[in-house]
């Protein structure tokens, strides 16, 4: 789960990580008032769940409270389209107004789970402000990595090693060491999947401050963090993803594709997207209906796919283990009849109750072409795409 920067800042504050003086506003008037309170030059930051906002006008340096009001008025209620959003962008409901600092150095600090090490790993770099992927590509020697111990945590000497590797001024070593240790605690105690401070800055008076904060919380761990669960902001999701989220379906909207995919199992769903691409068309979505979906969820899954304007044809690929093919078929037929869907479908159905499922679909009178398996589905899809015409 993504949370907003201002929410991440609140968590950092609670754990003693130094952050700039900043407050969040929902209206231009509030923004102006906050700017007056902070005084001097401030930065106005759109609160959205997407990186790259600075490049599209989502972060602005502003000198007076009056100008802050104007900037906030333009941002609040608008949508930002960044390289990480779909073409529809994400809505700006709030802005954060923060003090500006005199910065001497910009550094990078993050914590992620390294599955191959089996522990949280602190990554640090002297290349603050840059994306870590770019640094990893261009100058991997500038990234320092230290794994925490799964049972003990991050030892202070490890945190100090990172501070020293970053070459922070002597006066700031102790504070940086503490900041890294505190950040590790933020990660572990809140079940994060990502804590990223970019940039972490050294001010001209040698203070170390987390200038920006990105925190992702693990969805699977929200059951033990009811307070964090409340931070979810569904408005930031694509409307179709939002509906899938509510129906507990693993769905990702993919821009520009025209083949809707409905599959059980994440691996098979990816494989189905892959054969779609190989058949000459882009998949419109990733969708895993899961193993124990009831008819109602299948219906919603189908409706989400057909409500996607990009979808011209649907590929259903089911290999039922726990799932039951007849229930999936009933769900598809019910949803298609309710919505008067005429979209052509290619369906491969195998596993538990597959024969019953195929029969239900055959009896439905819907525009369905059967396929025996994955390879067969790819071939049928290719033929159907030719019939439909157009390119992708």
């Amino acid at each position: 789960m993504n949370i907003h920067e201002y929410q991440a800042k609140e968590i950092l504050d609670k754990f003693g990580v130094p952050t700039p003086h900043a407050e969040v506003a929902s209206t231009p008037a509030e923004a102006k008032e906050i700017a007056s309170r902070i005084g001097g030059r401030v930065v106005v930051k759109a609160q959205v769940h997407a990186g790259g906002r600075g490049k599209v006008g989502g972060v602005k340096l502003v000198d007076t409270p009056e100008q802050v009001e104007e900037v906030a008025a333009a941002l609040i209620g608008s949508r930002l389209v960044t390289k990480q959003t779909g073409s529809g962008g994400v809505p700006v409901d709030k802005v954060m107004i923060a003090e500006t600092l005199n910065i001497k150095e910009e550094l990078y600090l993050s914590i992620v789970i390294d599955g191959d090490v089996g522990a949280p790993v602190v990554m640090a770099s002297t290349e603050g402000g840059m994306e870590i992927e770019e640094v990893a590509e261009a100058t991997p020697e500038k990234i320092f990595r230290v794994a925490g111990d799964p049972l003990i945590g991050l030892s202070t000497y490890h945190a100090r090693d990172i501070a020293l590797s970053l070459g922070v001024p002597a006066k700031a070593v102790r504070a940086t060491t503490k900041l890294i240790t505190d950040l590790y605690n933020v990660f572990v105690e809140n079940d994060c999947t990502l804590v990223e401070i970019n940039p972490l800055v050294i001010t001209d008076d040698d203070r170390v401050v987390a200038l920006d904060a990105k925190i992702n919380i693990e969805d699977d761990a929200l059951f033990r963090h009811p307070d964090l669960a409340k931070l979810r902001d569904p408005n930031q999701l694509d409307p179709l993803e939002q509906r899938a989220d509510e129906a507990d379906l693993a769905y990702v909207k993919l821009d520009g594709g025209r083949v809707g995919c409905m599959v059980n199992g994440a691996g098979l769903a990816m494989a189905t997207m892959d054969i779609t691409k190989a058949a000459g068309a882009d998949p419109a979505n990733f969708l895993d209906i899961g193993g124990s979906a009831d008819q109602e969820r299948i219906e919603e899954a189908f409706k989400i796919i057909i409500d996607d304007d990009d979808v011209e044809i649907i590929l259903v690929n089911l290999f039922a283990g726990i799932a039951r093919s007849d229930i999936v078929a009933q769900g598809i037929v019910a949803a298609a009849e309710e919505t008067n869907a005429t979209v052509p479908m290619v369906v491969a159905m195998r596993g538990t109750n597959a024969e019953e499922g195929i029969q239900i679909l055959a009896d439905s009178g819907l525009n369905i072409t059967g396929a025996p398996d994955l390879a067969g589905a790819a071939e049928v899809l290719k033929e159907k795409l030719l019939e439909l015409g157009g390119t992708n």
Partner: protein
Amino acid sequence: MAILVGSDTRLLVQGLGRDGSFQANRTRAYGTNMVAAVHPGRDGQKFEDEVPYFSSVAKAVEQTGANTGVIFVPAPFAVDAIIEQVDAGLELVVCITEGVPVLDMVKVMAYIKDKPTRLVGSNCPGVLSPASKAKVGIVPGNIVQPGNVGVVSRSGTLTYEAIAQLVQHGMGQSTCVGIGGDPVHGTTFTDVLELFQEDDETEAIVMIGEIGGVREQLAADYIREHVTKPVVAAIAGSSAPAGKRMGHAGAIITGKAALASEKNKALAEAGVHVVESPALIGVRMKEVLGS
């Protein structure tokens, strides 16, 4: 012979709620020797009138000689079940449960590191050896066939897909192993490859990877050095965009190594028969074994 599970498997099932009971029923119907059921508050009762219930794993092991455990308990309690089974001394623990918090898995892996128990999962379909009718998990018994191809995969349904393709082309399986799709999990590709290489019954190996992480590259390194049996591999997710989680918590492209193309390259360089499409696993294996 097969690997991990076989004719000497004495199975304990923990967590017999709706899904667990359904799967335990399927497991017994398939012919697997299920000797104990663990579910709190059902001491003295019997699952399907035959398999004794226990409230504690240790007691179940003591009284039934169970050596293999499978876990269906809900995610918030799954880690406790793993630790309980490890402490009871089971040789193999298979955790089917999906949605176990990753930091819990981090702790479990550290806890079991020096213990004799092997863990498969969490979030996996489990292990099945067709010849000895040993099914520990949720791989459907009606799709497999005894034979000499070992199957190892991160994904459940893609495991079934590979099995179906093998059967369609007349090839059975020695053992099918689903290692799970979470970023931190027990038994790895490399562990299973090592077991298949040593197994007399296994002549060839199907390996199905996914985008995310570098475990496929580690497997490629291992294959280059140690595996002499032919390996056919497919990597799912070549069409997935970067930065988006494709269902599995581990299936997300973060950095170049996580790309399907990079994994394919590493495997091909290690001498693996890499198929461009997951639909071609069976065809390619037939070619490889026929030549």
